[in-house]
């Protein structure tokens, strides 16, 4: 049985995953055999090529598998883990499958949190899972900077300007961060997997494409020392962007070349910084002030 795939982000019903013209279905499928699998995110998500045709495959242990057809512009989600709630599966499509499809179509899609500290401008926080990205992004949202997204951000270079568009507008927090930031806020919060998904009130009212003002790369929390921000050379910014970018087939030379060219353009056009701070909630107001000063805004309210 095949059914239309419902996405919980109601404000983007017509284009729920940032892929206009694509259909997303959930149903049964023959076991997806891959001619090759490539583990590429270190967090349990595999991508591969279908053995029986040109389709691409994505699967994450404990959630689901997806068969992606670029010919018919369709995604079939199947082999859903019995323990995986619908919300978790929808989020997985939004933050694991759709970004990889966009990347394959020539976009540079970064795993990052995004907020808008000033009208029509965005800053990104880039870090692997578990490095405090969502907590910092949630704190900045709670203290007045509209949240654009928490996972996948599509970057475009136009006329010497870089535009950022978040693909997924819910915030996913670990329980301790949620308790600190959102338990009193009355936000629509739902447990999904080991995290709590929070509907963000002001995301839908923010323009889709914002000028990217700065990139902040969060240090490893295990090595975080004194609070500081250091400007990075463009080549390091480029490498960090590429390491954080989504890819459906990392070994595809042409696609990798496209990502590298886009990352080079972004790195040359937008300042990038290494952000180091102790991971305690008490630090966050000071970190916010430091970020505001770095991008030329006033300090905390």
């Amino acid at each position: 049985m095949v059914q239309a795939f419902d996405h919980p982000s109601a404000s983007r019903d017509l284009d729920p995953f940032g892929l206009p013209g694509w259909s997303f279905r959930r149903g049964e499928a023959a076991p997806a055999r891959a001619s090759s699998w490539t583990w590429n995110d270190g967090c349990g998500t595999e991508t591969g090529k279908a053995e029986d045709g040109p389709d691409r495959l994505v699967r994450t242990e404990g959630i689901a598998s997806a068969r992606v057809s670029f010919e018919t512009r369709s995604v079939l989600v199947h082999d859903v883990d019995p323990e995986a709630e619908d919300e978790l599966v929808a989020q997985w499509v939004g933050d694991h499958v759709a970004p990889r499809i966009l990347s394959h179509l020539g976009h540079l899609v970064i795993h990052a949190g995004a907020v808008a500290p000033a009208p029509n401008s965005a800053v990104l926080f880039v870090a692997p899972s578990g490095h405090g990205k969502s907590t910092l992004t949630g704190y900045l949202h709670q203290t007045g900077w509209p949240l654009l997204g928490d996972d996948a951000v599509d970057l475009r270079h136009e006329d010497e300007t870089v535009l950022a568009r978040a693909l997924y507008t819910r915030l996913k927090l670990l329980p301790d961060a949620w308790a600190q930031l959102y338990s009193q806020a009355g936000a629509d919060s739902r447990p999904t997997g080991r995290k709590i998904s929070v509907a963000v009130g002001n995301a839908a009212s923010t323009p889709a494409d914002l000028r990217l003002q700065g990139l902040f790369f969060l240090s490893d929390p295990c090595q975080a020392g004194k609070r500081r921000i250091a400007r990075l050379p463009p080549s390091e910014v480029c490498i960090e962007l590429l390491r954080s970018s989504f890819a459906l087939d990392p070994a595809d030379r042409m696609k990798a070349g496209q990502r590298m060219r886009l990352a080079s353009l972004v790195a040359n056009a937008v300042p990038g910084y290494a952000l180091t701070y102790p991971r305690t909630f008490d630090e966050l107001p000071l970190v916010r002030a430091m970020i505001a000063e770095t991008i030329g805004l006033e300090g905390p309210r």
Partner: protein
Amino acid sequence: MIDAYPLDLSPSPEALESRVGDETVILHLGNDTYYGLDTLGTEIWGLLKERVPLTEIRDRLAADYGVSAATIEADMVRFLDDLMRNGLLVHG
């Protein structure tokens, strides 16, 4: 020291590069690892791609930067060893 390196060293076909200002970012497709080259590294990499002999690269850079051939050679040895260790420079 430079003389000890094989004469047929060249950038790996699995290396993909992009210029970022005066520097270069290289992706090794085989291991999905990125490397950054500074200005001097970018210059040496460019000359390696043109198959310029190592001794000529050394002498050219020594003249351009106004330093001794021995100084440049020491930097080149470290750089070449890094490239070879990471599979970015291969025989052929």
